């Protein structure tokens, strides 16, 4: 119990220090940071989570049981990796005078990753079926 109390106090102190650092920023920076902080939670809790939840409900109701695991695999892998790749896929930071920045063909890269994920889904589904027949 003592360990937990000490940890809580240390955590609160660290967070408070972060808040102090934030309050040191110019007001317009602070307001914008607050908006971004809130937007992140809202985007997750009100958009992404319900979407994934909906897919889960639909999958559980209409998909045959043996396809659920492979398809969940595909969704989690491709979905999260796509989210990681948003800044490069959009090339939002590209600068015309710097050809060494964001210098890959990210769309083709994504298609390759999507294709490999799909192949893995198929392999998993087939492996599961052959396992079930034994």
């Amino acid at each position, binding site marked *: 119990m003592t360990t937990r109390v000490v940890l809580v106090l240390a955590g609160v102190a660290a967070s408070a220090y972060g808040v102090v650092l934030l309050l040191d920023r110019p007001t317009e920076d602070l307001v914008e940071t607050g908006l971004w902080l809130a937007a992140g939670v809202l985007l997750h809790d009100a958009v992404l989570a319900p979407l994934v939840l909906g897919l889960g409900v639909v999958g559980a109701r209409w998909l045959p049981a043996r396809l659920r695991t492979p398809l969940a695999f595909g969704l*989690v892998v491709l979905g999260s990796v796509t989210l990681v790749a948003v*800044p490069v896929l959009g090339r939002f930071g590209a600068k015309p005078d710097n050809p060494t920045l964001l210098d890959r063909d990210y769309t083709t890269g994504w298609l390759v990753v999507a294709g490999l994920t799909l192949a893995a889904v198929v392999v998993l589904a087939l492996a599961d079926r052959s396992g079930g027949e034994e």
Partner: protein
Amino acid sequence: MRLRAPVEGDFRSRLRGPEVASRVGLWLGICFAVAFLTGLVSHVAQQPDPVVPLPTRPVWGYRVTQGLHVAAGVAAVPLLLVKLWSVFPKLFARPDGWRPRALAVHGLERLSIAVLVAAAVFQLASGLANAAQWYPWAFSFRATHYAVAWVAIGALVVHVAVKLPVIRRALTGPLDPSPDPEEPGGPSRRSLLRTTWAATGVALLTTVGGAVPWLREVSVFATHSGEGPGGVPVNRTARAAGVTATATAGGFRLAVVHGDRSVSLTRAELAALTQHEEDLPIACVEGWSAVGRWRGVRVRDLLALVDAPARSDVRVVSLQTRGAFSRTVLQDEYAEDPLTLLALDLDGEPLSLDHGFPCRIIAPNRPGVLQTKWVTRLEVL
């Protein structure tokens, strides 16, 4: 049928719960700890007058810590998504009764979780955008990312402390319910965990190539392919720094100043001094890095020309007129280090304009932003 807000019990997937949340959360916590500690290293390294100066060895130190920093952030994305999914019903939990004490406990717990999730999402999103030099905001990235890092790590420590008994029970208990995890109806917890590790692995493999050269080919989402003049990518071009005209104008002179002693050298005069060649990495705060073969004059040889005393810090002044790093401080341990060069050539060719022509600083184990380009003046402090 009337629509109503869901309650915790409405969520029936047996995949959710502490068994999955604790196991994914453990790795998520490790990623955040690594990102926080390596972030501290980077923060200290960028201070003009750090409390604890970064050592100059190993030369690849910052390359590793900053590569780890960005990799930990990337790995945290799939982990955070699955972690939040596994505890999502908690969002609809009701307080344990309506007495003031129960309400207060409930409110505090809610607040700490809201702070944790907001700070965690913010750190990952802003970090990923920054790595791709995408700034869809006006606030200072460096100061804000640093401040929110403290908020995030503090909220994480509080969260772990509060949940410690639950975590301990879940990690020591069985993952899937016995006896048969393969009850009909889809994925087991084990398969969800394997899927999560796979997603984390794919996210890492497709991005780390910017720092790990042998993974370049598979890192289809790396922000830099690694190509560039002299085999080194460019972070900030001469045009972006506003030096195109001044750096190419004739009559360039490097001034080395120590009090009232000063020497002024043309590029040809610099090239006539004793040259040294070193393989040193450029490691950027954005996480990518590349080793270059630099050739130029040792900074300590230049300082000797003006009789600089031992253990002097040096102010490095760049031609660039824009940006926070147009003037940097080279601390004494870097200034004295035999590996620290005022480089004139990269990979056997004169520096390209974007790599800092006519001359630039290259020092061991230093953040890229401090490897000042287009140097026009060295001032002994």
